[in-house]
């Protein structure tokens, strides 16, 4: 894995993007873990911030990673875009050790990234952030007509669904015919 350990908020891994600790910080030094997305940019995140993600928290608990091991082998999330992972990491850092208020002003605002964000948050199992993202998606159709909802949520029309179904059947038929021909060839 070509860990670059640079870029965005984690340009220098030694200076993580975590929120500053309060004056009454525990004596035990906080442990940090490393994650990277599709762009291979490594983000340094505190264990406290990662508590929000049930997936990462489970990985840490089950694998028993030490900080050194974690540094050498960042958690790879190849299915998540770098900028999306950055948003998620920022949110986790901002909400380290505290519950999300009902109206959270620190949440990602980019509507154009909402779909990718929803998928990433669902994958990383961050319940509170997922609820917020789903709320945003639900709010998009407030007071909208069925035609507007169809456009906003990209719901195919009945005709489009029928055409897609026909196409899928045709493809499945071709594949089945190909397999039969291959099997006949093998038999010879």
């Amino acid at each position, binding site marked *: 894995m070509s860990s670059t350990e640079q870029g965005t908020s984690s340009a220098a891994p030694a200076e993580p993007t975590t929120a500053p600790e309060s004056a009454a910080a525990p004596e035990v030094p906080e442990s940090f873990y490393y994650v990277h997305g599709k762009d291979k940019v490594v983000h340094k995140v505190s264990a406290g911030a990662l508590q929000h993600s049930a997936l990462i928290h489970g990985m840490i608990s089950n694998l028993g990673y030490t900080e050194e091991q974690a540094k050498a082998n960042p958690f790879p999330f190849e299915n998540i875009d770098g900028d999306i992972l950055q948003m998620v990491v920022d949110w986790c850092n901002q909400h380290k050790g505290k519950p999300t208020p009902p109206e959270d002003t620190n949440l990602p605002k980019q509507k154009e990234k909402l779909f990718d964000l929803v998928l990433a948050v*669902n994958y990383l199992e961050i319940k509170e952030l997922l609820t917020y993202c789903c709320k945003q998606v639900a709010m998009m159709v407030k007071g909208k007509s069925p035609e507007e909802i169809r456009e906003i949520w*990209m719901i195919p029309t009945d005709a489009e*669904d029928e055409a897609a179904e026909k196409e899928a059947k045709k493809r499945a038929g071709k594949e089945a015919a190909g397999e039969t021909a291959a099997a006949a060839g093998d038999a010879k």
Partner: protein
Amino acid sequence: MPVPILCTPFVVLSEIICLLETEEIVAASFCSKKMKRFLKCYYQQRKPLEWNIYLKDYDSCGRVHIHKLDDEYHDAVLLAEHVSELDESEAKPIETNGYKRGFSSGLVSLYFEDRVMGTKMIVDYVTDLFNLDVYGLIIDTNGIWAIDWISRRQEKMLESFELVKNPKCNSSSDEALNYVLRDGDEWNGDYSIQRIDGVKAVIDLDIRHFVMTVLPPKEII
């Protein structure tokens, strides 16, 4: 920016649906057959038992409302009106088999040549979508047809009934009340009526408006 919700995992889609208002769910169900099928399956698995469906048929308009037990208000989710009520200057209606579909103030309205048939259709649509029976009926004297129709279409009896005064019509109001109270016994000037399951209600006829709400038996309270 569009979000292709049908491409999201089931758990995400379920969470989004859970956050929608009832009228938004009904509006979304008109997007496509596939969407309606999905919503129907969703509510078959998670029957919203805390929701009560009401049919309101008065002032020449049929409405289906949903009352959530934790909410004070009945929210209208679907309307049926006569096609003459359609104001085509606002937005061009969508023409489908047997009716026209319009949308205003966040509500889907269907316009029919035969409004009673249309009202029956919207009740069938909503009860089928949410997998629920009609809980209550609020009608004026022109909506008397709905009593027998609902009794025939579902096994569960109506839990709430309200007859509202129709300001345009006086002549048939006695006739309508007589129909509603046809099996009742007169008692001190009031009527005592009893459902098949034994639940009784006493109705004061000094006014041309009564409300009857059936409460659960004492042992359940």
